[in-house]
């Protein structure tokens, strides 16, 4: 976690006060998600987490792709970027490196993050950039009205698979662990308290954190609705899981039957890319440094050309 550079401080103004309630993190418009959509729970948990961390709206940048879930930044009172389908992570990475004092949170759906955006996830994880990635995993393409996603169950009938999905779903938790993410968790939209805690820890974690959240699509995925999850959800915390044990983490993450686990699967303290980058050592965000070359720098460059 870090605090954005304060212009107010610089120009001697009184500091913008920290929000007094999670409600102050409500955005300009109300969500247009379907009634009952899992994404409401995620938005609420995020707003509460930001509030409980004492962050101010301008210290946060929330970057999303395209999808129902990716509409989230518009519903959050924080700086936001609603970018391209599948591309939230590179944009978030660029923004974090451009101003590493920002708390950068990426949000989106399972299609966005694990389908078209899968390669960025793998590489962002191994780079271990200090951003938090919240995936609202509803195991379906919601915005495009219901086709399989990379996490849809085998056999699932959708508009693109009327005879049933033939593809084996990916497991975002085990993949992220293997690809080097340093904080890997799973939340459940209907347990906002638990999710809030996961988000808080993820934001505080210095490095790349992925939280895959079961966030049911009540309109297009009737296989994995709240009724499906409710009896199955178990918490890793209740099982004494050790987040440094990757084997146990993978094993627990693979469970998909009567018991499905949520909680923190894996965490480690490999240094984040932004902390390793010598260019950032100076402290001032790149975006606030003076532009161009000094006369000395220029002369040195030219002398090498001769």
């Amino acid at each position, binding site marked *: 976690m870090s605090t954005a550079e304060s212009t107010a401080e*610089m120009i001697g103004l009184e500091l913008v006060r920290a929000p007094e309630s999670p409600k102050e993190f409500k955005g300009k418009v109300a969500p247009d998600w379907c009634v009952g959509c899992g994404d409401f729970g995620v938005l609420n948990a995020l707003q509460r987490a930001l509030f409980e961390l004492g962050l101010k709206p301008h210290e946060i940048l929330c970057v999303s792709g395209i999808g129902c879930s990716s509409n989230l930044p518009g519903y959050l009172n924080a700086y936001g970027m609603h970018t391209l389908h599948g591309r939230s992570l590179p*944009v978030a990475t*660029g*923004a*974090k490196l451009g101003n590493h004092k*920002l708390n950068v949170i990426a949000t989106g759906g399972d299609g966005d993050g694990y389908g078209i955006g899968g390669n960025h996830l793998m590489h962002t994880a191994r780079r271990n950039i200090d951003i938090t990635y919240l995936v609202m995993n509803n195991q379906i393409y919601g915005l495009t009205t219901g086709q399989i996603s990379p996490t849809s169950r085998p056999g699932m009938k959708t508009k693109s698979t009327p005879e049933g999905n033939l593809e084996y779903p990916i497991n975002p938790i085990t993949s992220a662990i293997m690809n080097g993410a340093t904080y890997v968790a799973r939340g459940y939209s209907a347990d906002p308290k638990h999710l809030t805690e996961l988000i808080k820890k993820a934001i505080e974690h210095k490095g790349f954190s992925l939280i895959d959240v079961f966030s049911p699509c009540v309109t297009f995925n009737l296989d994995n609705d709240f009724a499906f999850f409710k009896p199955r959800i178990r918490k890793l915390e209740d099982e004494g899981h050790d987040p440094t044990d990757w084997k146990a983490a993978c094993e627990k993450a693979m469970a998909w039957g009567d018991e499905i686990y949520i909680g923190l699967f894996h965490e480690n303290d490999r240094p984040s890319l932004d902390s390793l980058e010598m260019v950032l050592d100076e402290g001032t965000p790149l975006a606030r440094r003076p532009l*161009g*070359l000094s006369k000395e720098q220029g*002369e040195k460059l*030219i002398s090498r050309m001769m």
Partner: protein
Amino acid sequence: MSVNGLDFSIAIGGAAGQGIATPGNILARMFGRRGLHLYAYNAYQSIIRGGHILLTLRVRDQEVLSHGDAIDLLLCLNQDTMDRHLGILGPGSRVLYNSDKVEPGEPPDGVVLCPMPVAELAGDSKNKLIQNTISLGVMMSLMGVDFSVLEEALELLFKRKGDAVVEENVTKARGGYDHAAANFEPFSVPLPEGPKPLAMWTGNSALAMGGAAAGVKFYAAYPMSPSTGVLHWMAQHAHELGIMVRQVEDEIGVALMTIGAAHTGCRAMCATSGGGFALMTEAIGAAAMMEIPAVFITVMRAGPSTGVPTKTEQGDLWQVLGASQGDFERFIVAPKNALDAYNTVAELFNLADRAQCPGIIISDLLISEGTYSVDPDVIEIQPEIDRGDLLLDPSPNGNYLRYADTESGISPRVPPGIEGFVHVVATDEHDQDGVIISDEFTHPHKRRRSVEKRARKFQGVAADCPPPTLEGPEDAEVTLVGWGSTYGVIREAIEILAEQGLVANQFAIKWIVPFHAEVVEEVLSSAKRVLIVENTHSGQFARYLRSETGFSAHGHIRKYDGEPFAPHHVVEGVLDLLKKSEAAVHVPYQEIIV
């Protein structure tokens, strides 16, 4: 060496892996130190070992506009080079070769063979590339350059490797020098000296350094020839200059990281070539819609698809014009050489910042990988920087609208991180406050206003782009139109035509968008005969020119065999087309089998 001042070309031919770069570099720096102008073109293949490479260094006592038409001194590092090039040399030229290994053919009249007994001159050296060092000695002697100049250069180059290596190289070079002095007739005029030392750079390093001077703080790339030189320069200077340089998983990521960094207020840039640019196009449209300024460089090579990665062409113009869906605002500019490329970067960043939209630079292999001399005093180390309405210290304002519909169309821009100005940018169509109208609020009148606001802001800023100008005599018989890298070769062709009594001028287009259609139409419609010179098969530029102006040229000189135009190709094209009916296409024959 020509009578009208110095005009001297050295070509070094061999296979990849024979170390052509080192003598090339030593010669280039030597010429620069001596105050001589240079342009070097390297004809090579997409291969690490083998194939055929021909590096041509052309030296003059004035700006060198192209790699030229002739070779005065050919160094053959293998038989292949001898076989390919001997036949096209002209009288007075010298051919160097290792007489132990290379069989000369029958030289054309007046071509002087200079056999080097390399085994003998190398003596006990175990260095496989010692042939290059010996050849340098021979060349210095032929050019009448004092040996101490080469000695100094070799010392500088090899000092990291220790005294023994320096000594071996100096000794063998001297062996070559003495051998030449004893056996070969030097060129009649020794290499002159210019008034002051010149620097050397490639187009890619000029683009990179131009970025640094313009204030780039974030550079991302995925390697792709012929743009990789920009990445290498940036990586090399990252820590020294405080620039974040990232190699990304693909070009999609490159473009979007660049946009992410740009949104925070950094000047951010990236470079690629055709296939990588194809992958970036979606992002460029996104930057335009979110109104984020960033600079994208694409360096053309011969296409389509993977094509000929180490060969030049101007075939990506329509790809750049058509980059991403929908109507949106972006600048597109094609510099004409390395220095112009350097200057263009800051100029483009200023325009992009002011209009809050992406800017695209189109370069090509010829510019980007060409080596140019440059007068160090003309390099503007601190170009003007204009960030437009970027507010980093805004005064508190409860009603900030990121996309305020102002009269100019420009909405003052506050980057994330500033208190009290929280906003969300979106690639969906949005209203002044950034709220998307593609959702429940879809509204044709708001949509129309947004489209018109963006168009208006661009038009306002674009009006400051300098229009093209006609170079040369106004009442010329022929007006040659080109864009980007053909500038130099056209200028030189015009000089040659003038010697032959034909008056031609040049109308070179640098700004592709905005296009200055009125100026262009006015100039061209009053020209006598307009011929378009371009490195494509389909005439992409001719068609674009017509799309903007309705003007149809009277003839076309086109080349698409991978090799660049030499001046005589253009000259012959002009003479041929003067005899032909309107709209004929002249395609020059590439003599040198590179």
